[in-house]
């Protein structure tokens, strides 16, 4: 430290000298003259500032001092018990003095006294008119039982201050009328009880995290049905699923579905029975589609993250009917078909997850993307918007109706069969490739 100090001695002498000369030239008050000789001094100053270690120490000390001051002033300016630290002399509030049973010594009587029931033998201190209200012998409303809590709790010094009278705290005003259940703050350490079996209540941040994580996971691997389901549940609240539920409630069939609460599982949808139905019925098409794609009705996850029990059912119903939408529109299960169907569902139900799934278009091959933009997206949006709500179709009752009939009733046109289109293109490509290969072997067309 001292070595550094000595090393900078020359610099400091320079600085000191320049300061002196600057002082002298200041007295002359010639602004132009100041520029010339001081230019050198400026650079010296700058250099000094950069190199002079004293300044760093000074910086440290000053920041420490200001930081300390800031911390001291910035911490809790008043606390609930800040009054308790005020020391009060014993007799400074004589009306608070209690228990002076010395009836003879009148100098100690600071309170008004009276003889209860006219009995001259005993005296009682009258209650203070300032900070107590006494309403004897009335039957108070049941609401005021809450006051029991106030009475039983040890009265702190603050509850008896004079200033209480002037202020009417709004919490006090509302307390008797407020709802009885005390809502504690919902946090990860304090989850409310589930509203239905399997319910997992999430805080807002947890929901946000779930939405973000499941969006990334489902984009990375569109086969992750559970991630898509979680994305749907995380983004549907509070508005979109409520709107879907209200659409169901506005429709008579939708209301019946909400009353009956039918579930689609392999137990309730007997596939053997469906396979026996005539060919162009909804049930047969559904069974055929399930067999073609190799799935069962049991592949759907349970709804877990939606808080309202009825809205959870709506979400579950939407999920379970998804296969029926495939059957009615004929879109296949690979990514292209799923994206097309999700676009249709977005236009029809408005759930945000269906809209977000359209990001999967980025994962499609260029030819698929072109097909999507040319054919399937326009089909999906125009049909989804103009057709009736598919959530309001009571599928269990429509199993034996004609598929064309149902499509006409709902107002859905069938898009071109994607599986066939792709097969045709694949076959054409294979034929072209074989043709090229056979040409290439001999150079002669066989």
């Amino acid at each position, binding site marked *: 430290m001292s070595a550094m100090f000595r090393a900078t001695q020359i610099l400091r002498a320079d600085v000191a000298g320049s300061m002196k000369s600057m002082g002298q030239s200041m007295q002359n008050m010639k602004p132009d003259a100041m520029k010339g000789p001081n230019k050198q001094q400026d650079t010296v100053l700058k250099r000094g500032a950069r190199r002079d270690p004293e300044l760093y120490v000074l910086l440290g000390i000053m920041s420490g001092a200001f930081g300390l001051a800031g911390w001291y002033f910035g911490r809790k300016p008043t606390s609930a018990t800040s009054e308790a630290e005020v020391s009060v002399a014993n007799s400074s509030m004589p009306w608070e003095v209690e228990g002076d049973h010395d009836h003879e010594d009148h100098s100690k009587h600071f309170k008004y006294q009276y003889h209860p029931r006219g009995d001259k033998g005993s005296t*009682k201190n009258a209650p203070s008119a300032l*900070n107590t209200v006494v309403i004897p012998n009335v039957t*108070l*409303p*049941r609401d005021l039982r809450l006051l029991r809590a106030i009475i039983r709790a040890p009265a702190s*010094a603050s509850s008896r201050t004079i200033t209480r009278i002037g202020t009417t705290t709004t919490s*006090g005003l509302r307390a008797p009328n407020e*709802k009885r259940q005390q809502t504690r703050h919902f946090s990860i350490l304090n989850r409310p009880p589930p509203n239905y079996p399997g319910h997992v209540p999430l805080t807002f941040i947890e929901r946000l995290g779930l939405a973000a994580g499941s969006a990334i996971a489902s984009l990375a691997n569109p086969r992750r049905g559970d991630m898509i389901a979680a994305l749907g549940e995380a983004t549907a609240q509070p508005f979109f699923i409520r709107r879907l539920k*209200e659409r169901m409630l506005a429709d008579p069939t939708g209301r019946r579905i909400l009353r009956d609460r039918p579930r689609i599982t392999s137990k309730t949808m007997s596939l053997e029975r469906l396979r026996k139905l005539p060919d162009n019925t909804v049930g047969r098409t559904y069974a055929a589609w399930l067999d073609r794609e190799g799935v069962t009705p049991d592949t759907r996850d349970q709804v877990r993250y939606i808080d*309202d029990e009825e809205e959870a059912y709506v979400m579950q119903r939407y999920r379970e009917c998804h296969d029926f939408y495939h059957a009615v529109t004929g879109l296949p299960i690979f990514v292209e078909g799923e994206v097309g169907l999700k676009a249709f569902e977005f236009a029809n139900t408005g759930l945000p997850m269906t809209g977000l799934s359209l990001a999967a278009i980025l994962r499609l091959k260029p030819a698929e993307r072109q097909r999507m933009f040319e054919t399937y997206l326009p089909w999906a949006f125009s049909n989804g918007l103009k057709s009736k709500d598919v959530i309001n179709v009571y599928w269990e009752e429509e199993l034996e109706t004609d598929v064309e009939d149902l499509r006409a009733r709902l107002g859905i046109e069938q898009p071109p069969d994607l599986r066939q289109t792709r097969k045709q293109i694949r076959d054409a490509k294979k034929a072209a490739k074989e043709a090229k290969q056979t040409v290439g072997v001999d150079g002669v067309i066989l």
Partner: protein
Amino acid sequence: MLSRSASKSSRYICKACRSTINASRKRKFGTNSITLNPTSDDIYDVVTVGGGPVGLALLAALKTSPSTSHLKCLLVESQSLAKQKSWSLPPDAYSNRASSITPTNQSFLEAIEAWRHLDLTRVQPYDEMQVWDAGNAASIQFDWSAEAIKYNAPLRTVATMVENSNLSRGLLRRIEDVGAEESLMSGWNVKGIGNGIDDPEGCNLSTWPVLELQQIGSEGSQNTKQIATRLLIGADGINSPVRTFAGINTNGWDYGRHGVVATLQVESSSDPASPFQNSVSNDDFDSALEDFLSDDPKSSSSSSQPNFENITPSNRATAFQRFLPALGGPIAILPLPNNHASLVWSTTPQIASYLKSLSPSAFTATVNAALRLEQVDIQYLFSLPTTISEPNNTTPHESELTWRLQHTKSTLPSRSPPWITALQPNTIASFPLRLRNATSYIAPRIALAGDAAHTIHPLAGQGLNLGLGDAECLSRTIRYAVEHGMDIGDLMALQGYSGERYAAAVRVSTGVDLLNKVYQISSGDGLVGSLLGAARGLGMRAVGMVPGVREAIMRTVD
């Protein structure tokens, strides 16, 4: 020479006089000309056309005040006032037209000594109004509890529910009491209004309004009368002939809504309509009280001082209003004595006619639904058929209500609305809602009061209150004019009335209209609709939480 002097002198007629002269040639209603030849019997000081509460209150006020009791007054009403006077209903039946009277108007009625002639067992003072919205979870409570707690006083009344017939009958009794029954002319129709003629041997009645009256039920000109009056007061309702005669236009529009009224029976709750008839006494509370009042404190002094400051005084009755933006307007349940309530539901004409066609049990289920369920559910109820009933005799409305109540998240206010149990038979009625304001409330020798001057939306229950305020102000103006020797019909004498009442009426009617507009912007379902609902909820919460705003609002309609 003569003509020149005449033309010269005509330049010295001031503009006001010239306009009156011209006006007297223009003002007419319903008649081509009135050749008046009234005897001195038929010249009156004040003639009021219209025997509703406003006209009757004005007559009672004029006859009560000693300065104006000598005026020759007449009240013309086409319906039978004798029937009004003999109106009576059993104690458990209430008329479906009931209005809430503010404390100011109650003081006015007490000052003219009409209040004691009302059947006070049939009036219900209420001290709280709960308002909430179907589009969000906000609610606001209007009461004077802040004042009551501050001054440790009982709750002040917000308003008093009085049946209109009760009020009219009380006023008629007062008029009889003060000996002015001959001033009442009931059963007479106003056939026309015109101006009198300048009788060279008699009076110059060319600027005085002259009414041609015809007794109802008589054809021909047997029972007609002509009366002239110094001051003609129009208290004759929204299509006032007096206003037409005066040439006063109105501004306003029809809301395209109907107000459905009915009398309902409600379930008695633990807070009945009597001040001290409240619930079970709390033994623990009593024992705490005993400890406090006893002589020997058990432990340290501090624990024996319970805090009694935050007691809200007990409530007598509560009025409820729920806004239903998607269904046309608010539904209000106003308390009446003996567990009855008056319903006022502003809604679209289609829904109003549907409600009127419902059976009583379906109607009560719908009203209960309107107070508790979501708007989509209430809208669905309006699509149900009105005649089919399911087995065990329940209507589809009731079964829908039972089902949806299980699944509706409660967004009720802190004091929940009562459960409607029954509908009093033959009390459902509806009337169209309109906004009208006359461009002027006065004209030479004409004054308008009540609905003739202004008609507003029933959302805040202020229509009759404005009318009674008009009656009070007009009686005060006439008294002032008489005491200062003025011509009571002169425009200058009436200016005080117009100045005071015009601004007040426009303020209230504009405020109520704006509030109605705010609560009608809902755009059904959709993102915009729910965002607007959230915005309204924030506004309502802000009004409730900012100290003083609630009290300011209540003071304007006090």
